[in-house]
C-alpha cells in the first residue's frame, strides 16, 4: 500500500505541475476554454485520488478550490488575474498537503480559501455572459467499467448517485456479462448500466460524472426523444434478469448495484473507438524507471563498449576472418546500444523552462514590475543529471535579471522602453554543447559600480586598465554584489560565484555580456552529457591523455627549430596572433626527451586559447568518463579518466584549468618583459 501511496504522490505531483502550467497559460489566455477545462480536470482528479489514498486534508481543500473554479468553468465568473493567482497560491498549498499530510495546515488553508473566495466574488462582476440553459433533455447513458474497477477504487454506486443528482434518472442494470457462479471472480465487476436521465444540464455535465474513470470505461451518451425514452421500456428488461442474478450472487455487499462479473471474452480495453482508448494506449507507451537503474545500465554499456574495443583490436590483429566479421557486428551493435542508451537519458529543456514561468510570475508580483518571459528552443535535449543541476543556477540568474536587470515601469518609460520588461530564455545545441542564454532588456550592468566595488574589495588596483570583458567577470567573484540594497530576492552577494562553480562543475562555462541601457545576456555552455565525451587522444611521454574534442581548435606541428627558438618565451604565432603554450611534457615531468616532431593542440574556452605541446596525436576517441577517486579529486589538471581499448587508462585533461594556467603564464611573461 505504501508503494501505491508513493505512486499516487508522484502522479499527484505531476498533476499539480500540469495545473500550474495550465493556470499560468490561463493568465495569458483567460478566454481559453480548453485550459479552464484542463485545470478543472486536474483539480477534480486530485480531489478524487487524494480521497482514495487517504489524503483527506488535500481532498477537502482541493474540493473547495474545485468548487470555486467550477464557476469559472461554467462561465459564471471570468478567469481574472487575481482569481488565477489565488488558485496558484492554493495549488502551492495542495503541494504542501501532499508532501506533509499530517502537518497542521488548517489556518493557512483557510486564509487561502478566503482569498480565493474574494477573488471569485470580485470576478463575478466581470463574468462572461451566462450560457443559455437548454430545456430539459432526456439522455440515454450507457456505461461499463472494466473488470478490475473495484480494485482501482471506482465506486459505481457513487456514479449512479451523481447521475441522479442531475435530474430524473431511471437506472437499469445490464447483467448479460455475468458468468456462471463457478467461473465468477468475486472481486471483478461485470455489470453495465443504462440510465435514462432527464436533466436540464448538458452533455458535458453528464460526462463530468465519469471524468475520473473515463479513461478505462466505455460510455455512450445519446439524446433520446423524451417520450420514446420510455423508462418502462428499460424497466421491462430488468425484472427478467434480476432474480436470476440475485441467485447467482455471492454474499451481498452494500455495493449491490455494482456486482462482479467474470472474465468476459471481450476485454473492455479493446474498444479503441471510445474516448478512453487513445489515451490509454498513449499511457502504455511510457514506463517509469528509477534513475539509478538507468545509471547502472549506463555503466554496463560503458563496460561493454570497452570490452568490445578490446575485441576489435584482437580481431584486427589476427587473421581469422570469421572472428573479424563477428567483431565488426558487435562493434556496430554496441555502438547502437550506446546511442540508444544516451537517448534514454536525454530530456528536453522544456521540463526545466516550464518551472521558470511560475518563478517569473511570482517575481513580477513581488517586485511590482511587469515581466514577460519568453522561451525558445525548449525541445533541445540534455542529459537528465545535467538538467537537475542546472535548475538552481538558472533560478538565480532569472532572479538577478528580474531584480537588478529590469527597471521599474517609470524608469522604463523614462528610457523610452515598453513598460513590460522582457526576459528571454533560450536554448540551442551547438556541437557537443547546449547553449542556454538568459537575456533581459533592462538597464545593463553598471560598469562604474562594478569597478568601484572591485577596487574597494581589492580585486583590481584603483585606476588599473582592465578590459570590459574582464571587468564584467568580476561579478563572479565570491561576495561580489553591486546592489545598493539587499532585497528579498537577491543582492546578498552569494550567488554568481556559486552559479559559476556549479556550471564549471558540469564541465560547462559561463559568459556575460551587457550593454548599458539595453540589457544583459548570460550564456551558459553545457556539455550534452556528463557520461561520454568525444576526445582527442594524445601521448605525452609514456602517458596517454584525452583532450575534449569540442575544445580543440586545431593541431599544428612544432618543429624542433621553433621549439628551440620559443624556449625562452613559450609563445607561438598563429596567423598573426601570439598564442601562449604549455609544454605538457615538462608540466607532467615525464623525464623523456622531446619527440622530433612535437605537435601543438590549440584549445580554447570562450575567447581565450592556448596551445598544448604533446608528443604525438593518436586520434579521435569516444570515451566513457570515469570519475577519479577522492585520492585524486584535488588535482585540478584532470577532470576524469577513461579506459582505452587496450584496457589501459588515460586521463582526461581539464581544458578550463589549463587555459587559465596558460593565461596566468602569459601574464607573468608580460610582467617579466
Amino acid at each position: 500500500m505504501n508503494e501505491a501511496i508513493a505512486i499516487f504522490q508522484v502522479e499527484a505531483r505531476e498533476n499539480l505541475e500540469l495545473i500550474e502550467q495550465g493556470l499560468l497559460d490561463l493568465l495569458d489566455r483567460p478566454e481559453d476554454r480548453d485550459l479552464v477545462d484542463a485545470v478543472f480536470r486536474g483539480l477534480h482528479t486530485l480531489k478524487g485520488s487524494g480521497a482514495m489514498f487517504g489524503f483527506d486534508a488535500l481532498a477537502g481543500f482541493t474540493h473547495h478550490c474545485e468548487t470555486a473554479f467550477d464557476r469559472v468553468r461554467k462561465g459564471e465568473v471570468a478567469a481574472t488575474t487575481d482569481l488565477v493567482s489565488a488558485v496558484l497560491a492554493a495549488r502551492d498549498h495542495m503541494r504542501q498537503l501532499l508532501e506533509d499530510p499530517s502537518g497542521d495546515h488548517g489556518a493557512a488553508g483557510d486564509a487561502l480559501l478566503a482569498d480565493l473566495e474574494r477573488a471569485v466574488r470580485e470576478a463575478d462582476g466581470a463574468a462572461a455572459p451566462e450560457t443559455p440553459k437548454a430545456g430539459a433533455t432526456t439522455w440515454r447513458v450507457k456505461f461499463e467499467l472494466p473488470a478490475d474497477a473495484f480494485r482501482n477504487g471506482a465506486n459505481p454506486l457513487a456514479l449512479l448517485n451523481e447521475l441522479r443528482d442531475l435530474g430524473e434518472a431511471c437506472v437499469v442494470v445490464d447483467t448479460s456479462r455475468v458468468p456462471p457462479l463457478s467461473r465468477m471472480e468475486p472481486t471483478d465487476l461485470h455489470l453495465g448500466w443504462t440510465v435514462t436521465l432527464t436533466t436540464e444540464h448538458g452533455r458535458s455535465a453528464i460526462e463530468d460524472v465519469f471524468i475520473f474513470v473515463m479513461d478505462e470505461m466505455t460510455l455512450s451518451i445519446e439524446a433520446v426523444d423524451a417520450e420514446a425514452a420510455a423508462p418502462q421500456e428499460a424497466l421491462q428488461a430488468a425484472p427478467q434478469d434480476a432474480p436470476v442474478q440475485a441467485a447467482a450472487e455471492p454474499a451481498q455487499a452494500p455495493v449491490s448495484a455494482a456486482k462482479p462479473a467474470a472474465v468476459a471474452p471481450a476485454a473492455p480495453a479493446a474498444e479503441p473507438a471510445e474516448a478512453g482508448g487513445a489515451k490509454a494506449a498513449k499511457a502504455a507507451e511510457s514506463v517509469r524507471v528509477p534513475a539509478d537503474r538507468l545509471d547502472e545500465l549506463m555503466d554496463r554499456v560503458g563496460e561493454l563498449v570497452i570490452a568490445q574495443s578490446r575485441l576489435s583490436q584482437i580481431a584486427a590483429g589476427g587473421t581469422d576472418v570469421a572472428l573479424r566479421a563477428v567483431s565488426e557486428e558487435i562493434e556496430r551493435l554496441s555502438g547502437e546500444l550506446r546511442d540508444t542508451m544516451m537517448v534514454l537519458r536525454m530530456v528536453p529543456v522544456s521540463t526545466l523552462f516550464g518551472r521558470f514561468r511560475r518563478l517569473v510570475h511570482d517575481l513580477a508580483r513581488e517586485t511590482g514590475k511587469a515581466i514577460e518571459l519568453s522561451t525558445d528552443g525548449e525541445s533541445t535535449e540534455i542529459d537528465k543529471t545535467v538538467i537537475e543541476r542546472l535548475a538552481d543556477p538558472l533560478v538565480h540568474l532569472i532572479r538577478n535579471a528580474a531584480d537588478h536587470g529590469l527597471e521599474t515601469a517609470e524608469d522604463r518609460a523614462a528610457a523610452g522602453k515598453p513598460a513590460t520588461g522582457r526576459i528571454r530564455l533560450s536554448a540551442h545545441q551547438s556541437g557537443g554543447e547546449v547553449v542556454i542564454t538568459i537575456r533581459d532588456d533592462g538597464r545593463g550592468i553598471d560598469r562604474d559600480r562594478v569597478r568601484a566595488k572591485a577596487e574597494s574589495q581589492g580585486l583590481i588596483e584603483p585606476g588599473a586598465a582592465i578590459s570590459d570583458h574582464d571587468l564584467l567577470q568580476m561579478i563572479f567573484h565570491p561576495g561580489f554584489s553591486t546592489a545598493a540594497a539587499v532585497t528579498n530576492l537577491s543582492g546578498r552577494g552569494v550567488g554568481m560565484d556559486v552559479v559559476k562553480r556549479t556550471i564549471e562543475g558540469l564541465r560547462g562555462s559561463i559568459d556575460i555580456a551587457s550593454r548599458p541601457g539595453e540589457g544583459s545576456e548570460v550564456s551558459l555552455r553545457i556539455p550534452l552529457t556528463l557520461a561520454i565525451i568525444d576526445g582527442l587522444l594524445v601521448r605525452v611521454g609514456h602517458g596517454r591523455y584525452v583532450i575534449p574534442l569540442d575544445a580543440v581548435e586545431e593541431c599544428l606541428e612544432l618543429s624542433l627549430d621553433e621549439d628551440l627558438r620559443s624556449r625562452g618565451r613559450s609563445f607561438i604565432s598563429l596567423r598573426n596572433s601570439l598564442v601562449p603554450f604549455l609544454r605538457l611534457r615538462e608540466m607532467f615531468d615525464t623525464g623523456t626527451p622531446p619527440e622530433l616532431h612535437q605537435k601543438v593542440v590549440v584549445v580554447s574556452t570562450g575567447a581565450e586559447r592556448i596551445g598544448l605541446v604533446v608528443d604525438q596525436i593518436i586520434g579521435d576517441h569516444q570515451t566513457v568518463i570515469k570519475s577519479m577517486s577522492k585520492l585524486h579529486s584535488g588535482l585540478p589538471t584532470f577532470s576524469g579518466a577513461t579506459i582505452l581499448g587496450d584496457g589501459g587508462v588515460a586521463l582526461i585533461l581539464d581544458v578550463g584549468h589549463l587555459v587559465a594556467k596558460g593565461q596566468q603564464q602569459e601574464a607573468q611573461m608580460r610582467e617579466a618583459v
Partner: protein
Amino acid sequence: MSETAEATGWTGAEQMEVLTFELNGELFALEAVAVQEIMDLAPETVVPGAGAFAGAVINFRGKVIPLSDLRVAFAMERGEPTIDSRIVVIEIDLDGEPTLVGLRTDKVHEVTTLARADAEAPPSVGMRWRPEFIQCLVKRDGEFIVVPALQTLFNQQHDARQSTASATRH
C-alpha cells in the same frame, strides 16, 4: 587483556582473519574482509602531480582506481616489480565514501588467523616507521607481522592532497 586492546588498537573480536603479504622483506597483514581481489600487475597510468603514495591509476574491472604504494608511507626502498608482485584491491572509506584502492605488494602469502593475545602496540621509540600508521604488531613464529592502520594512512594522504591542492589554486 583489555588494557592491551586499548594500547594495540585492536578492538573487537579475539581473532582476526587476515591476508598476509610481503613488502620489501617485511610481512604485512590486512583484514581479509576488506580485500576485494588479488590481481596480477596491470598497465599503470601515472597521474602527474599526484605524489608517490598514490601516483598512478589502474583499470580494475572497468573502474579507474588509484594504485597506492605503502612503501612510500613506510619510507621503504622501492624495488622493481618481480614475478611475484601482485596488486591487492581493497575497499576503504574516504570521506564517508567507500573507495576501491589497489595496493602494491611484492608477494602475497596466505589468508590466516591472528590472535589478539599475540598483538603488541608499536614501540614508541626505536622504530623507523611513524607509529600512527601502524595499528599493531603481531608476533608469529618469531617474527613480527605489521598490521597497518590503513584508514589513518589514506585519510592523511587524502587530507594532505586536499590542502596542497587548495593551496596551489589560490
